[in-house]
């Protein structure tokens, strides 16, 4: 290394040192410490006592952990495809050259500006069984079905019925699709218009153009959004926590891994067990992200390559 290169390196390191220090103090150290705490009985106020793999054995035998994991995975598996399809559909519609396009775009983006806590409190009322807006919209349809078929269908008590609570939360999540819509809209601007013109000359219909031009050209953006959604969905905490008033929902149907970590760490003072849970979540996120990257990359079309 020449003197100049060494100087450059020193300067470079100096400039990024705040980030390095922050990373070491707030990311790497907590990660390593939580690996150690996950092997201990630790209540924060007392010295950790080494337990070996006991926390992991307990976790394996803990039905609540499995319930939380199941809820988290089901939520991610249903909410991500649903919100991705919806936001792509909305983006395509909002990309149509019609009068008032900007106003429509703003309207669909606005809800995603609502903070998670306000959103959860708002949805507490929207999903209220007897009085909620959602059920007020559903009831007329159910009444028609009941009158025609002679059935006794009732609008669900979203937040009190274990069968519907997760569905209610997924519905809540759709409220925030505006953010993804904006990213898809930006992606749609990058699709060359000549591709559509050429396809039209070849006699394709709108659906074929969407399937063979829009989707492939949008695939890098979809890939990015899906990856971020997986990470976000697995870390779901604030909305279900508020929706359930800090609890788990009926029959633990709204207990997520992140909530269970929080409960163990700050309500039960089982920081060792919470660390073991957190590491499981960490491994799950890394694992699913790697799988997504591995398989997703093959399907993504980068026009620059």
């Amino acid at each position, binding site marked *: 290394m020449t003197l100049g290169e060494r100087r450059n390196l020193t300067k470079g390191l100096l400039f990024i040192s705040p980030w390095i220090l922050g990373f070491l103090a707030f990311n790497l150290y907590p990660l390593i410490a939580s690996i150690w705490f996950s092997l201990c009985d630790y209540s924060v106020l*007392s010295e950790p006592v080494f337990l070996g793999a006991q926390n992991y054995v307990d976790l394996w035998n803990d039905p609540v952990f499995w319930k939380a994991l199941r809820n988290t995975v089901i939520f991610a598996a249903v909410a991500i495809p649903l919100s991705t399809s919806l936001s792509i559909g909305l983006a395509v519609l909002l990309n149509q050259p019609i009068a008032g396009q900007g106003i429509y775009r703003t309207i669909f983006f606005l809800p995603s500006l609502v903070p998670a806590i306000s959103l959860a409190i708002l949805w507490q009322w929207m999903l209220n069984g007897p009085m909620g807006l959602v059920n007020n919209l559903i009831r007329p349809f159910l009444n028609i079905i009941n009158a025609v078929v002679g059935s006794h269908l009732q609008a669900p008590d979203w937040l009190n019925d*274990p069968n519907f609570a997760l569905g209610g939360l997924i519905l809540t999540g759709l409220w925030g699709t505006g953010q993804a819509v904006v990213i898809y809209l930006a992606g749609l601007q990058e699709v060359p218009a000549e591709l559509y013109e050429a396809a039209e000359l070849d006699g394709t219909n709108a659906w074929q153009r969407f399937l063979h031009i829009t989707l492939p050209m949008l695939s890098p953006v979809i890939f990015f959004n899906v990856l971020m959604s997986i990470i976000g969905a697995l870390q779901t905490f604030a909305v279900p926590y508020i929706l359930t008033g800090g609890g788990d929902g*009926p*029959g633990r149907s709204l207990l997520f891994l992140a909530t269970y970590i929080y409960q163990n760490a700050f309500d039960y003072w089982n920081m060792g067990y919470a660390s073991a849970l957190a590491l499981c979540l960490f491994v799950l996120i890394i694992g699913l992200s790697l799988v997504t990257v591995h398989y997703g990359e093959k399907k993504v079309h980068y026009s620059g390559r």
Partner: protein
Amino acid sequence: MSGRLVLEYWEKWTGFERDAMARVVDDFNNSQDKIFVRFLSVSRIDQKMMLATAGGVPPDVVGLWAINLPSYAENNALMPLDRLVHDAGIHEEDYLPVFWKLCRYRNFLWALPSTPSVTALHWNKKMFREAGLDPEQPPRTIAELESFNEKLTRKNADGSLAQIGHMPQEPGWWMHDFPSWFGGASWDGGTHLLLDATPNRHFFGWLESYPKRFGGPAMFQLRGAFGNFASPDNPFFNGKVAMIMQGVWMNNFIKNYAPARFEYGVAAFPEETEHPGAPMTVAETDILVIPAGAQHPKEAMEFIAFVEKQKNMENLCLGQRKISPLRRVSDEFVKNHSHPYLRTFLELANSPRAQPTLALPTFKEYANDLTTYVNLVLLGRMPAEQARSEMLGRQQKALDAKLARWEQVAPVRVSRWEKEVQP
């Protein structure tokens, strides 16, 4: 404030309850010129105190709940107060026994009471009259409560509930104490949870009878239509629930939110078996503690001792519309108190059958699990026996783990505490 020692005091109260304590703090600050108490209202105080204590910068005085004591004491978060309290001239005999008991754990005194409460049955007299019941005669047994319940419950044409006489989940704040009204307890105070004992079996059986009689989803649907507790839509005020278990503070909410001329009564909550004579209640109290590692414990105790003086305590409890934890109550306190049933609450608190609320080292896990299982039973989604035995399995394991941990640290910790409290 200059030249005075500054004490940091964190409290959980907001609104008029905070204001009542703020006046006592002002009185203390004006009563001398050596100590200045800085009073801060803090949300989620139990968690914030834990983090501040773990970080080595705890406040000097903290207002917690008595249910926090076992886990905080075992986790070395508190300072034992026996010696400081003795030096301050405060004695056990000054307090109603049940509230003193709530401040003790593992043979040490960890706190002194601030504002306490006992639970009691509250009933809506108008609804009693409409149902053909004598509005001056509350139920005395669980069987009677349920017979009244049948008469007070009304259904809509579509089968949904329009109103109900009583439902255990409204407000459901004392689910862990309910076994007391069935002649038992949730914990033996040592190593065993008592969920297998007859009173707990009866309690779970009682819960199971609700979905069978009223329909689980129907009860939760009715509950979904309830408004906020502190609002005119409180189900007790707007005639949705006729009988509830509540504390002494309820009168204040009735005055602020219930319709004009709202008529209600207060009596001991009915037990499974009638006990003539002394009434049964479960007591709880807000407490003042000094965190472990606090910098000025002597001065902190001087402030706490000031709060505990009869005059100041009565000012605080009057301001918060609660009862006093002290054995001696002045005539002015009774005269100036706005609660029409103050004497009923005082009688309950003084009763030899008044029991302290469940103070379990694993309280939060226990209470959280109980809510889950009770709701499943009330929804009719899980048989009571399954819920009770699953709950026992999980919670006994959690308690065993906590106690095993305690056994490891107990010798060192107890001997240090003993040294700390020696005169």
